[in-house]
């Protein structure tokens, strides 16, 4: 083992052990099924609260695509005790900030706030979890806002359009095929009754996980959670089972026209769901290919061959099998066709010859360091821990990915590239500049 690897293992093991000693996690589960995780950190007067609901665009159906995301917007518009706009008003005026995001598999709400605001935040959050007040006025207003968001992020966006087309083509029947923000026509036609039904089905304490981190007292916090959340009834959560996507047995291609200065393309390869060990190797491959100036595609296609201006790859971990994405923005005067040929040549080369030991070590160290850096803030820790609890079923598996990265070998990289990153498993979307 190289000196760097030895060093790496010792430092990371020390760090992992110290992390849970320095920031121990306490658990509590209420009788309504709400799981609560707490972590104290008294370095600064800051607190972060994450609420994760186990629902996303995966749980939708045609006709109401985008409802998970639209609903995320509606959550800020009034509840039993707090009128429209009061959530943000009370929070911000007390010294706090709120945001949320929706993905294909989950919806997350978080607040960063001054510690003295904790009871207020729990009052606000629990009231909307249990007794959200949906109105026609707030639906009308938020619908307009979401339509503007769609125009910004998708309709007028080069990458946004490519991404949307990629998912639509990669998946014939699984609910991953439609965009998280929804099709414009569905956004325009979602009804209040759809929103009410969605809230009753998915926004339940037994369908949520909460993580509180920062300058808190765990015992007192648990008492507050009990005070504010115990009164929320558990509900029967639908056991949604999206249609299983059949195996892909050949390449798919999509072309579309859009005004653009440069040629762009995006490609997606079908990969397994969470729980499959190949995902760890795919994370390593993502880092090898496009993370940093010493990454393979950056060195070859951006610097040496002067083909691409920008490239990125992404291996998302999903509840159901997803896709591994590689995106290229070509340099002026270079075409997507040239980019695709070069990409395929590099993937073939790695599948056949493998990667350098030094490259593999680099990828491992980058992923490990990124992991550690991401734990510097209460918000970062709370986010990672609540995701570990949901995706792995156990927050204590927080560091599992990094332990697995260390085991990935050069042979694993070759095997996984051959298995997944090949043309018959691929969907490619190409933007043709101009009308």
């Amino acid at each position, binding site marked *: 083992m190289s000196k760097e690897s030895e060093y790496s293992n010792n430092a990371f093991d020390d760090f992992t052990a110290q992390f849970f000693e320095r920031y121990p996690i306490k658990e509590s589960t209420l009788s309504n099924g709400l799981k609560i995780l707490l972590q104290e950190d008294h370095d600064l007067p*800051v607190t972060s609260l994450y609420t994760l609901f186990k629902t996303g665009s995966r749980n939708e159906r045609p006709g109401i695509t985008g409802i998970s995301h639209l609903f995320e917007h509606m959550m800020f518009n009034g509840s039993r005790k707090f009128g429209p706009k009061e959530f943000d008003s009370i929070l911000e005026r007390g010294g*706090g900030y709120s945001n949320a995001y929706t993905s294909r598999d989950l919806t997350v709400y978080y607040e960063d706030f*001054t510690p003295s605001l904790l009871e207020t935040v729990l009052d606000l959050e629990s009231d909307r979890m249990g007794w959200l007040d949906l109105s026609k006025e707030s639906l009308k207003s938020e619908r307009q806002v979401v339509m503007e968001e769609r125009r*910004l992020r998708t309709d007028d966006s080069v990458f946004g359009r490519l991404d949307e087309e990629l998912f639509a083509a990669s998946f014939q029947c699984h609910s991953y095929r439609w965009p998280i923000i929804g099709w414009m026509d569905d956004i325009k036609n979602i009804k209040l009754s759809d929103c009410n039904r969605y809230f009753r089905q998915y926004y339940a304490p037994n369908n949520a996980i909460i993580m509180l981190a920062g300058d808190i007292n765990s015992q007192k916090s648990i008492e507050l959670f009990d005070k504010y959340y115990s009164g929320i009834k558990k509900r029967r959560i639908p056991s949604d089972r999206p249609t299983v996507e059949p195996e892909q047995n050949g390449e798919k291609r999509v072309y579309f026209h859009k005004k653009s200065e*440069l040629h762009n393309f995006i490609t997606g390869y079908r990969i397994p769901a969470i729980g499959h060990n190949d995902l760890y190797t795919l994370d390593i491959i993502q880092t090898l290919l496009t*993370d940093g100036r010493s990454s393979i595609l950056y060195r070859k296609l951006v610097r040496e061959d002067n083909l691409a201006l920008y490239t990125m790859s992404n291996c998302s971990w999903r509840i159901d099998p997803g896709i591994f994405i590689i995106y290229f923005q070509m*340099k002026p005067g270079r075409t997507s066709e040239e980019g695709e040929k070069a990409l395929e040549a590099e993937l073939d080369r790695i599948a056949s010859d493998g990667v350098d030991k030094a490259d593999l070590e*680099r990828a491992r160290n980058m992923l490990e360091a990124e992991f550690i850096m991401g734990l510097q803030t209460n918000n970062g820790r709370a986010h990672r821990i609540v995701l570990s609890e949901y995706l792995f079923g156990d927050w204590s598996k927080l560091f599992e990915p990094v332990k697995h990265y260390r085991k990935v070998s050069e042979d694993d990289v070759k095997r996984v590239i051959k298995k997944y990153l090949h043309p018959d498993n691929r969907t490619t979307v190409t933007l043709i500049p101009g009308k």
Partner: protein
Amino acid sequence: MNQEISIPEINLPDSEKFNTGILETAVIRRTGLPVVAFRLVIKGGASGDPDDKAGMHRLTAKLLQLGSADLNADDFALKIESTGGSVSVHTTYDAVVINGQFLTRDLEMGFELLAGMLLEPRFDEIEFTRQLAKTSGDIASIADEPQQVCGVAHNRNLYGSHPYGRRIIGYKKSLDNITRNDVIELHGNSLLNSPIQLTVAGDVETEWVRDRIEKLFSIPPGTTVSQNTPEVERINGIRNILVEREELTQAHIRIGGTGCSKQNPDLIPLKVASTLFGGSFTSRLNEEIRVKRGLTYGINSSVAAYHRDGPVQVVTFTKSESASEAVEIILSEMRKLADKPVDSDELHGTKQYMIGLFPFSLETNRRIAQQVSDSRFYGLGDDYISGYCRKIADVTPADIQRVAEQYFSSDNAVVTVLGDAAKLSNSFSSASIRKIDEYI
């Protein structure tokens, strides 16, 4: 009613300072995660570019990380990334900034690489050519990012021929004028001759840092280079500019004038005014444009401050059909902010929001290094960070009205709208029409 503002207690370690060789160094020791961040700031940035060589500082800065001493660009990148560390360089109007972050165990190597970048950059011919080509491509690619183009256009419309109106990255034409010799001379005669400050924050001892700095950065400091950025002229009257960009469903809007410098005591009340106006979800602009009318997904008011007066601007986007309505409302709200004293309850809420969130800006070593570095660079005083919340708390309604009249004037502002002229030209018939190419 006199409302008490709650100010959280922040116990940030004092920074220990020393001057050694070419660097003025400050170290803030913070135990916890085994991570150290550093920020090196060289006085003199893009505002010093000659008019016909816009982009020169940025190009030179980028080349600092493309090979030094016996490491070519690829080896340099591999050496950093093999540890999981990071080094990045960026250029502002006032400075060239190198940010780095390493696990503590790798910091020695991080400092060695930093010294190589600063003192022995190679400026290899091949890297110069590649970086020129990349920069040219980056300049072209902005045309596909309407929000960014609107920002570039608005800056030019606001500042005109002042250096702050130029793109820091430069232009296709100006890049053609920059030679490798220009870069070498800029580095040797200007960057190394300027005051250079290093700020280090994280799990590291001051004496260890001092020892490494003395070994690695032992050349004498340069003679002081004064910042020659000209004063900024205030906007007189309203200027409406429509920048054409076909096939967009939305219009991108920027409205505002010039603000104040980093050292100006108006800056804090101006930031409070800006937050109240458009810097939070419950701000006036968000309420009027997004919440009440659903015209946008995002609207924001912001204040930037440099060695001279930075821009004060409102930024938003909306479907083309609503663009003129959005502009009218924004200008109307600017008038209200200046004409009517702000309610003490509203001001209290804004101040509490800013103060409550301030500690989050100190949560990571990188953020601490940035805060301390900025206060050192602009000479804001050792108590700037510890006294920041108190300064916010002391802002009065009279302060808000005063800065609003001066810096948020709806009678003296530039309005830049970018979008599909076919959909917008009727609503903005009095605007001057420009093409994107004039700006990039």
